[in-house]
């Protein structure tokens, strides 16, 4: 049985299960509880050129079947990552996908150049960040801005380039096409939903940052629709992200058209979930008599 999946030239995952950015740090903590080599790939915390301190606490809060986070992209910066974390990740037999962001086109480009290194299997661009030059509108909210940004980054790296879309847009298909035309090798659908929580006793927002991003099972039905919609509009592979908790969810995302799946929030609750999910997927394929995982991808039947 073949559960490997090719995402881009030079990027082949041994299985379609990835960690998600921001819920796996740089892999060291999880490496203490399981062998990272069992994963299709590791997606790192989002990196920027310089270290970032992040937002005031509280930075997380629980919501019905989900959570909000407003970490504020705290990270150790590209140099420290390359020096201190990348070599360790290289000791595992898994793909290393480095998530990054910038506050302007320049920073995105510099990051792409910096990360064009041995030991980096692919880079994942987080475009849910405000473009300071354009008055703070997110890169991921305007197809022209996104297309230009992706094209610039594309020119700056030899690595497979994954663009992670923001979900809260009117026409997700347009954004997906803009990224594809800019030269993305694959898309991740999608990031968290802008949301908030209020404490009715103190009459204050719960998060230090007021708003945060909603993730977890609560958003899975929306993420599934987005993957279905996007994968029918683009020709490049789609990586699903949003609310995965089980092998059932993985199969559903594959049926909807995803080629791989990231597991984020649920791995905070259940850090050992990855192995069980991969095993469940294999059992499903055995039960259905499937030879290759590619038979599932996009094979949703009509209602």
């Amino acid at each position: 049985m073949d559960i490997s999946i090719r995402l881009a030239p030079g990027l082949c995952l041994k299985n379609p299960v990835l960690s998600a950015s921001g819920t796996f740090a740089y892999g060291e903590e999880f490496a203490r509880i399981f062998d990272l080599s069992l994963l299709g790939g590791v997606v790192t915390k989002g990196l920027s050129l310089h270290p970032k301190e992040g937002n005031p606490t509280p930075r997380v809060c629980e919501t019905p079947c989900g959570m909000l986070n407003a970490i504020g992209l705290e990270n150790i910066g590209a140099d420290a990552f390359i020096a201190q974390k990348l070599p360790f990740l290289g000791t595992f037999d898994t793909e290393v996908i480095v998530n990054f962001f910038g506050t302007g086109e320049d920073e995105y480009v510099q990051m792409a150049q910096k990360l064009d290194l041995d030991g980096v299997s692919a880079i994942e661009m987080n475009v849910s960040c405000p473009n300071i030059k354009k008055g703070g509108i997110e890169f991921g909210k305007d197809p022209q801005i996104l297309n230009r940004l992706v094209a610039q980054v594309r020119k700056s790296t030899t690595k497979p380039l994954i663009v992670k879309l923001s979900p809260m847009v009117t026409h997700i298909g347009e954004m997906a096409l803009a990224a594809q035309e800019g030269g993305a090798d694959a898309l991740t659908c999608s990031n968290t939903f802008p949301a908030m929580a209020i404490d009715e006793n103190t009459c204050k927002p719960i998060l230090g940052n007021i708003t945060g991003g909603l993730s977890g099972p609560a958003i899975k039905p929306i993420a599934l629709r987005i993957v279905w919609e996007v994968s029918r509009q683009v020709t490049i592979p789609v990586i699903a992200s949003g609310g995965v908790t089980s092998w059932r969810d993985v199969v559903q995302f594959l049926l909807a058209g995803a080629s791989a799946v990231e597991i984020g929030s649920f791995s905070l609750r259940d850090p050992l979930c990855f192995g069980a999910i991969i095993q469940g997927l294999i059992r499903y394929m055995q039960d259905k008599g499937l030879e290759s995982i590619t038979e599932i991808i996009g094979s949703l039947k009509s209602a």
Partner: protein
Amino acid sequence: MKDSNALVKDNRQVAQDTYLMTLMCELSPFTPGQFLMLRLTSTCEPFLRRPLAILSYNEGAVEILYKVRGEGTSLLAEKKKGEELSVLGPLGKGFSDPRPEEEAVYIAGGTGLPPILAMAERMKRGRLIIGTYTKDDIPLWQRMQNIGGVEITATTEDGSLGIRGVATQALDGLLKTIQQPCVIYACGPTGMLKAAASLAKDLGARCEVSIEERMACGFGVCSACAVRTTTGNQRVCTQGPVFDASSIEWRQ
């Protein structure tokens, strides 16, 4: 750190809104101040685990002492003998032992008691101050009395037991009476920790504080639990929850 299935052996109310639970599970040895992340249900609601300090661990039986605050702790209070919970831990860094020449002073406010009591029960020497609003808020009063070698002082804001006032006033008074070098172990509301840190600084004493912050993972991967220190942000869940008080940059 390990993810284990734990069986509820006992769960009983021991003070106003406060419960003592005994869980059967195999843990590695713990240091007072370390904690567990408890998963309360098999459905995804509530979604996150809850951090709770380890009060004791003995031959497969771990005790936790918790106050009912919201949805999670309410669900915990409803658990009956024989029910299962998933337990991640022991997590974080605990208190360091007092040096031989140091007098140990433990101070706990509100739900800060568990790690402090764990420390006092381990060291079996020193002085413990427990501060609450009223007498009914104090759990395990008899058990505290029974720790050989530890002198217990209670403070209540309404004066219903011990000294009327807040714990840090009592700490101030106590420190004035101690001649030898001190180490202060504190857990409780931020205001209390800050006051204890400041008293320790004035005295030139060591002070270790156990910090509470909202957590999502509890094992260092999500960056939720940042605390500002003199060396930048640290993670409460892995680099703490116990910190040297002099390294903390207190808010406000």
